[in-house]
């Protein structure tokens, strides 16, 4: 069930290079699963901006976003006390029941946030691999560790953690893998972990975010699906990976 409501920004701070953490207070009742997103209305811009839910705790919602254009730039300038209109309860989210004994969570860059609520829902009983380009982009390593998760950080340039890609830090000794991050990362994971069940969160440009405009539809092995409605989380096996 989706809901539209005004939230009040309680804090908004930079936590890594071009990455901000915003905490908001409001009616979070429509947010059910880890891996859902909210669609944020920003003054002066026509389309809402879809942002994944990082955490929800009572009436407090945490969003982590990267400044990549007008919308997110404007978000980064909001001060505490500001009001934001959010469309909440969007998308399917990750299936917790698939996790099994040894789930693996893999996040790349600003794909990390939705995995935080997932790790929390899994009671911290998971392996987590976080990938970034360099040390100045790293965030949330400690937050995942505090949940009790077994966290590994990799950077492409080796300036923090292990040097390499997330695929260098994962092995097949897992019951299910959950991922969010750049398309190339998801595709590489799907190839490396083929045969092991996986859930990937796909990003697409959206119009509405709730299934009305068909702007974000992708072709899967199970037919045409809307990323905003039937996704954003898909079975890695049903995604048709393009080069």
């Amino acid at each position, binding site marked *: 069930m989706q809901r*539209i409501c005004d939230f009040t920004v309680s804090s908004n701070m930079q936590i890594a290079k071009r990455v901000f953490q915003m905490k908001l207070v409001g009616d979070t009742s429509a947010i059910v699963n880890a891996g859902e997103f909210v669609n944020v209305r920003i003054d002066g811009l*026509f389309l809402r901006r879809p942002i994944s839910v990082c955490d929800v705790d009572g009436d407090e919602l945490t969003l982590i976003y990267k400044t990549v254009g007008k919308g997110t730039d404007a978000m980064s300038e909001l001060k505490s006390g500001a009001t934001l209109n959010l*469309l909440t309860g969007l998308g399917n989210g990750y299936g917790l029941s698939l996790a099994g004994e040894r789930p693996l969570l893999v996040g790349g860059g600003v794909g990390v946030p939705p995995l935080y609520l997932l790790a929390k829902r899994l009671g911290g009983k998971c392996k987590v691999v976080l990938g970034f380009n360099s040390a100045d982009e790293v965030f949330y390593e400690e937050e995942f560790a505090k949940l009790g998760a077994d966290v590994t950080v990799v950077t492409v340039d080796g300036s923090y953690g292990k040097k390499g890609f997330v695929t260098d830090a994962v092995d097949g000794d897992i019951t299910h893998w959950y991922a969010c991050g750049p398309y190339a990362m998801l595709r590489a994971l799907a190839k490396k972990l083929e045969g092991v069940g996986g859930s990937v969160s796909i990003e697409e*440009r959206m119009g*509405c975010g709730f299934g009305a*405009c*068909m*702007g974000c*539809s992708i072709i899967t092995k199970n037919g*045409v699906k809307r990323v905003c409605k039937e996704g954003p989380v898909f079975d890695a096996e049903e995604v048709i990976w393009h080069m």
Partner: protein
Amino acid sequence: MAYVEISLSGLELDNPIIPASGTFGFGYEFADFYDINILGSIALKGTTAQARYGNPLPRIAECTQGLINSVGLQNPGVDRVIAEELPKLKKVFGKKAIANVSGFSVEEYASTARKLDDEEQIGILEINVSCPNVHDGGMSFGTDPKCVYEVTNAVKAVCKKPVYMKLTPNVTDIKAIARACEDGGADGISLINTLLGMRIDLKTRRPVIANKAGGFSGRAILPVALRMVYDVYETVKLPIIGMGGISSAEDVIEMMLAGATAVEIGAENLVNPYACRDIINDLPKVMEKYGINSLKDIIGGAHR
């Protein structure tokens, strides 16, 4: 007392507010937000003979006070629309809906329209000769008066229900197209569809939309739509469903003054799913503010 009821080719609507095709799916998605039975009617997602995925992604781009889309008529095809989508809509919407039909040949327009004409849930057929996002179809029909005449004629020949031709604004002379609809036997005219537009990404230096161009809609296009509705009202005697950039009760009244009997709300639904409900709620007090007793009295009121 504010009277908001209107009559559209014999169809009595509780109010003139109709969500526009392509911005409201097959209606039932919005039943999660509010009781959609408050709407005058619903213009359903554009339907073609065969199922279509549409155009490559990305097919959405932000604009100032609007957006560009190049969805390209994604739909499950007319047979599945009738078998699956209409029953889902029926569960949450008890009124007559407006079917929106697209095609790639005159025959295809007629055969798809005929199937939907048989459906009891459908009150009006809106024939889209204006989609900017499909090659060799849609808009290419809508830019040539002779083709518009042929499509209108062919659909009218096989359908019993009122036929509204949905026109593209991407023409030099909208009056000539409107006359072709009237000559072809149309019962009404819907306008405007989207304006062809483009955005270019400064980082990649390439068009944002994979198909390069797409259809521009949203609040920014209201003045263009008003001018075209005004011109068409002066040219033909047919009722008009006016659309393009409407986002408030004031806009509805402005569009009706230009000549519209009913209006469709499009892009606004995508950013505010409650847009139609809000407009319906606001209408009586805005009518009162401007001394309007009945909306029926203001249709074409700007033509004096």
